[in-house]
């Protein structure tokens, strides 16, 4: 009885979470194996962007080098699997922890840097990473990269999947999709707990006013490096999953553009929000694909321009969107939705929300 009442009075966002989970769980049963593998990458992006969001959105530090951190995670997994024949599922937490350690160590010099210098140093890191990976050839196989065999789904999972879909055999891609989904759910849940409790409040406080936060007894250095470490952990797990999903890692898998793509995702989705990283993952994966498909499908666009757009289009779209969003909607898509929802509610109920007496959510600026 009480549960029913609690369910009925739950705020709409809990229903949205439920809808999202049902959508993602059901997706591979209605799409092809290839489409699931695309959505796997969306989930991976969402994981890494969640980590970036903890760093940039909540603790107010900037990193342009998360692609490099993903590389650390992916190479850890690749080397453990190909050299030491470790089970791929076991390599994921190892990759996460190792990358987290790297991030924590990066966070220590970052403490002394202003946001601008931090941006600069991490940008340099992202540019240098591919050539750093190429060097220890014995370990990383240089430019050749490392192949990762795609894992077979376990018996239990494939039987359940066949029962639900009516006999379809579960492919490796679909299995990996579910692995990523479970990991994404766990990591989002952890992030939720982190943000809603003491560490999250501390990080937001030092983001908004560092000196005041320190005066309240918040360990500024501790929380800043912790944010770096946690963020890197997410990037490492995401990188490990990325390597396993693609089945191949090479220095060119992690170019500067990847770090960009992640930042764009975080910004477009909406910094310092929870749905932001998920939307950001969807956008940063589908945007280049959708935009070039759109251009080549339009008959009025000459073929010459359309073919030029295939290569340069994503960069143009990303760049223009980044600028436009920063100027017109600094809180991203989530901010736009909130603003629209608030206006709608005002129109329907009149000003203010007297029923619950809740304050409208503060606009969160970057």
């Amino acid at each position: 009885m009480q549960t029913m009442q609690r369910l009925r009075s739950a705020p709409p966002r809990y229903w949205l979470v439920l809808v999202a989970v049902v959508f993602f769980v059901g997706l591979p049963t209605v799409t092809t194996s290839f489409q699931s593998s695309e959505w796997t990458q969306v989930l991976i992006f969402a994981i890494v962007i969640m980590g970036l969001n903890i760093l940039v959105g909540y603790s107010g530090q900037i990193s342009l080098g998360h692609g490099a951190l993903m590389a650390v995670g992916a190479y850890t997994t690749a080397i453990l699997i190909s050299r030491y024949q470790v089970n791929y599922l076991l390599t994921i937490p190892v990759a996460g922890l190792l990358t987290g350690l790297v991030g924590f160590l990066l966070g220590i010099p970052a403490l002394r840097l202003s946001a601008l210098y931090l941006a600069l140093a991490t940008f340099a890191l992202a540019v240098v990473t591919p050539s750093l990976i190429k060097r220890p050839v014995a370990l990383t196989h240089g430019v050749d990269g490392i192949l990762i065999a795609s894992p077979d789904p376990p018996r239990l999972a494939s039987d359940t999947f066949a029962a639900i879909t009516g006999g379809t055999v579960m492919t490796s891609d679909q299995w990996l999709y579910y692995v990523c989904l479970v990991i994404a759910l766990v990591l989002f849940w952890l992030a939720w707990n982190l943000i809603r409790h003491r560490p999250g409040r501390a990080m937001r406080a030092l983001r908004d006013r560092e000196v005041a936060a320190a005066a309240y007894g918040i360990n500024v250095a501790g929380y800043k490096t912790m944010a770096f470490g946690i963020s890197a952990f997410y990037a490492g797990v995401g990188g490990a999953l990325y390597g396993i999903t693609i089945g191949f890692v090479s220095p060119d898998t992690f170019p500067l553009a990847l770090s960009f793509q992640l930042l764009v995702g975080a910004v477009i989705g909406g910094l310092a929000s929870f749905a932001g990283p998920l939307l950001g993952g969807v956008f940063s994966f589908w945007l280049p694909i959708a935009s070039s498909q759109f251009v080549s499908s339009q008959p009025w666009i000459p073929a010459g321009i359309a073919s030029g757009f295939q290569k340069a289009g994503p960069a143009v779209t990303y760049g223009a969107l980044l600028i436009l969003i920063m100027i017109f909607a600094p809180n991203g898509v989530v901010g736009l939705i909130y603003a629209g929802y608030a206006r709608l509610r005002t129109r329907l109920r009149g000003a203010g929300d007297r029923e619950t007496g809740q304050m409208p959510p503060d606009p969160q600026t970057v």
Partner: protein
Amino acid sequence: MAEFIQQVVSGLASGGVFASLALALVLIYNAMGLVNFAQGEMAMFATFIAFTLITRGVNFWFAFPLTLAAAFVGGLVIERVVIRPVERAPVLTLVIVTLGLATLINGAAGFLYGYVPRSFPSPFSTQTVNILGAFASYQDLSVIAVSAIVLVAIYLLLQRTTLGLSLRAAAFHPEASRLLGVRVSWMLAVGWGLASAVGAVSGIMVAPVLLLEPNMMQTIIIYAFAAAVLGGIESPLGAVVGGLIVGVTVNLAGAYVVGGNLELAVALAIIVAVLVIRPHGLFGRPSARNV
């Protein structure tokens, strides 16, 4: 020894290129406290303009000032259109906007000119001249000379003209300058134009060596960051000295210590080392923070 001198001379030549781009970064940093991540891409695009002019038959020494003028106008327009709306926004927003700008310009160049590397005509002969038993190419020496001329010109502009005084005043104390009749917001735009033109010099100087393509400046900008940070990011003189030091260090390290491919890592090491040990660089003032 001869080889060593050769390495130093070619290091100085690349140092001149880094110094120009670092100077562009410093100009914008001084104007608005922002590192412009799009500086390299702006220089690359200007180089493409020069390339177009030269291949259409314009003489190099006519195309060069024409390109600088175009870069100046381009920088001015970019400031008015893209930067102005976020002028007062937090640093993070500004950084993201300039990153967006970098991506946009890179994509636009890829769209207009493609990603095939093109050889850029050099106005200087590739012959070498003998200095103390070492061979230095005219190309390198000319790059050093052109960079030096640009740097002196910027110095004279900033220190000896009314415009330079207004620029410095607007950056130093915006409110007081506005009261004294300096159009501060406009000065920001001029600063961007100036930086864009200075950056364009580095692009044109490096293009004959690197081959022209949209990603040409991606590594150069890292060296320029290292140069600016090493010199102290608010010091024009520091940018020049930093550029030369970085150029020579990277060249020598590439030749004798780390080998090719890892030269970029040397720049990263310089950036990190300076930021950790001496964040205000060689010529900058240590910054004090008001609490």
